[in-house]
């Protein structure tokens, strides 16, 4: 049971539509500076396209670097959407109402960011469509299209899983957006936006039949989308786990380990986003300390399961006592700079945030949650980096080929690009559509009762 502020429908509409009707003061400046970062990153990409992948720092034997790390990171972040919108919806967690859309939008943009990393990564991005089974009719005449993609390769499973996730996320966002687009359509004054919103609203007028379909669709979609919850990051982990020749990658625990890690980073990112939105749009009537409290408690559990799977991964790796594996782990933990990164990773991904979340005051404070969840995501980026790079550094018997890696300026620029892109995408989305769903919040208000607890009268939902 959670405490809420009882609001009238009009208040909700006014509050939540105000950033949509006119841009906030900081909007253009923020978009401008994010755009500058994106432009710098992209200019690095243009250079890479023009002169070749030599501008990155990947080399023999570390053929995968910051781009793949970043790909896995953003796929991990994208798990937030499905966790919040599908699982919390099906379990009827009432506190999800004001954050579902933010989480879904975060999913959408982080998936696009992840996919862009594939373009940065491959040697010939202009031929990337060869991994799809598209018939030549769609692509146009192409001599090399006679061959079906190799379905044994995880790089064919990846686009299938991520593509399904992207499509279902777009569907999810759009079905849940319909009543709100209709609301904006009715409120907006200027002519051209009104036409655009009218088209997008697909004739939603709020008839009982439309509401009925609208209420059923997300539940149905959440049930359908649940397999993706398991599949997406499992498949991403198999990019590594199927590699028999890379010590530290070839592990059966990888799928559950990656999924739980993805939830850890994804839910943290949602908490971070919530705190950010609360601060930017002054939404303290909608995002309550209770929300952060609930997320904080969820995160303590998720983080601890994640730590356990990390521990298992180490046990499984060290149990056979094979020399290359021991050399690899030795490098990860005892050799500079990996040892510093490893300590930083442990402290940022688990020790500092989880011990902080044990305190109720920290869980209930948006500011503290903002910083601790950022720490988690720093740690989770490092986690992927610490899996990918030391594994590829090849601590095998052929010590002639041992190598190392550190990202180049172009790679760092493009990693910064993806971060700027996701933040920018969410802000632009929030400028066009309400980022907190007014219809969902209003629905939540309908479920509430005034309950007397001690001497206080509290507005709360009983079914929790």
């Amino acid at each position: 049971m959670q405490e809420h502020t009882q609001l009238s429908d009009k208040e909700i509409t006014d509050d939540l539509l105000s950033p949509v009707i006119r841009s906030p003061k900081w909007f253009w400046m923020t978009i401008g500076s994010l755009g500058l970062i994106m432009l710098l990153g992209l200019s690095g990409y243009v250079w890479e396209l023009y002169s070749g992948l030599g501008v990155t720092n990947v080399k023999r034997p570390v053929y995968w670097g910051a781009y793949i790390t970043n790909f896995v990171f953003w796929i991990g972040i994208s798990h937030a959407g499905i966790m919040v919108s599908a699982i919390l919806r099906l379990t009827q967690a009432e506190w999800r109402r004001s954050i579902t859309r933010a989480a879904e939008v975060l999913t959408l943009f982080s998936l696009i960011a992840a996919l862009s990393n594939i373009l940065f990564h491959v040697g010939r991005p202009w031929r990337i469509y060869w991994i799809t089974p598209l018939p030549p009719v769609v692509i146009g005449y192409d001599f090399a299209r006679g061959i079906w993609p190799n379905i044994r390769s995880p790089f064919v499973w990846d686009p299938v899983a991520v593509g399904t996730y992207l499509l279902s996320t777009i569907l999810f966002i759009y079905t849940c957006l319909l009543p709100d687009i209709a609301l904006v359509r009715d409120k907006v004054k200027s002519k051209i936006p009104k036409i655009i919103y009218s088209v997008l609203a697909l004739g939603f007028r709020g008839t009982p039949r439309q509401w009925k379909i609208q209420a059923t669709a997300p539940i149905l979609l959440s049930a359908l989308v649940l397999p993706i919850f398991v599949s997406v990051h499992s498949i991403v982990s198999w990019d590594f786990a199927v590699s028999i020749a890379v010590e530290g990658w070839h592990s059966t625990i990888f799928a559950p380990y990656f999924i739980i890690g993805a939830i850890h980073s994804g839910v943290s990112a949602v908490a971070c986003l919530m705190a950010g939105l609360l601060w930017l749009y002054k939404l303290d009537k909608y995002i309550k300390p209770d929300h952060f409290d609930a997320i904080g408690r969820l995160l303590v559990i998720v983080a601890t399961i994640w730590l356990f799977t990390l521990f298992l991964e180490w046990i499984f790796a060290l149990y056979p006592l094979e020399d290359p594996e021991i050399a690899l782990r030795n490098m990860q933990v005892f050799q500079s700079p990996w040892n510093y990164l490893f300590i930083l990773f442990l402290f940022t991904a688990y020790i500092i945030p989880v011990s902080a979340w044990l305190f109720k005051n920290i869980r209930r404070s948006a500011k503290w949650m903002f910083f601790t969840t950022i720490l988690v995501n720093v740690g989770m980026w490092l986690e992927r980096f610490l899996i990918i790079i030391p594994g590829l550094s090849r601590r095998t018997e052929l010590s002639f080929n041992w190598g190392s890696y550190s990202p180049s300026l172009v790679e760092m620029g493009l990693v910064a690009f993806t971060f700027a892109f996701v933040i920018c995408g969410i802000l632009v989305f929030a400028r066009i559509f309400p980022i907190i769903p007014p219809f969902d919040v209003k629905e939540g208000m309908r479920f509430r009762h005034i309950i007397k607890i001690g001497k206080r009268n509290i507005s709360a939902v009983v079914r929790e």
Partner: protein
Amino acid sequence: MKQSKWGMVVDLDKCTGCQGCVVACQAENNIPSNEKSDYDEDRVIQWIRVERYWEGTFPDVKARFIPIMCQHCDEAPCEPVCPVYATYHNSEGLNVQVYNRCIGTRFCANNCPYQVRFFNFWEAEWPDSLKNQLNPDVTVRSRGIMEKCTFCIQRIRRTKRDANVNGFEIDDGSRAINPACVNACPTEALVFGDMNDSNSKVSKIKEKESKKSGRGYHLMEHYGTSPNVIYLKKIEKNKSHSN
């Protein structure tokens, strides 16, 4: 004609680490010259390389050499991970790379335990004086794709075609069909031939050396790749006899 299955034997007892094979391969297969900057960047392309290891402590130090090229594994781990079938196994037991098909995910290179797959980070360049020595039978690889040892498939193809047209039998170990590295090896440490032909030199060595007392072994057998390159151990002098 009987189906061939190409294989190689590397006798480490005969290898002197002279790098002749490396240079021959470089010239035969249009591999751009490796400059100092390439070594600094760890981006050298050497389809065959001679790894040098030091054994013992000064002054009793020995240099050990092991030439490593693509092992043309029967169970090549690089093949299933390629999303576009740019690398596959052909009917003659060769692990083949289709340059024009490759999109450069570099997954195959990660999954190769021998580290014999190379990525073209830059467009290949030759000094003007070397442009006329490029082998017309071998594709010049563009940037953004993988390449690796082919057992000089162009020589195998050409010799088979010539044999068909002119109606002669290909001799085992003929210089026309041998890869460039084998022809260049001054000590005959490298032997190339058809594993399916029980009279070929490689088959005989395989038969003799894969016995328990033999010197034969596969590189990194524990990955289960079943390579088609057999290494023969160096013959150690009597351990008690030290100098």
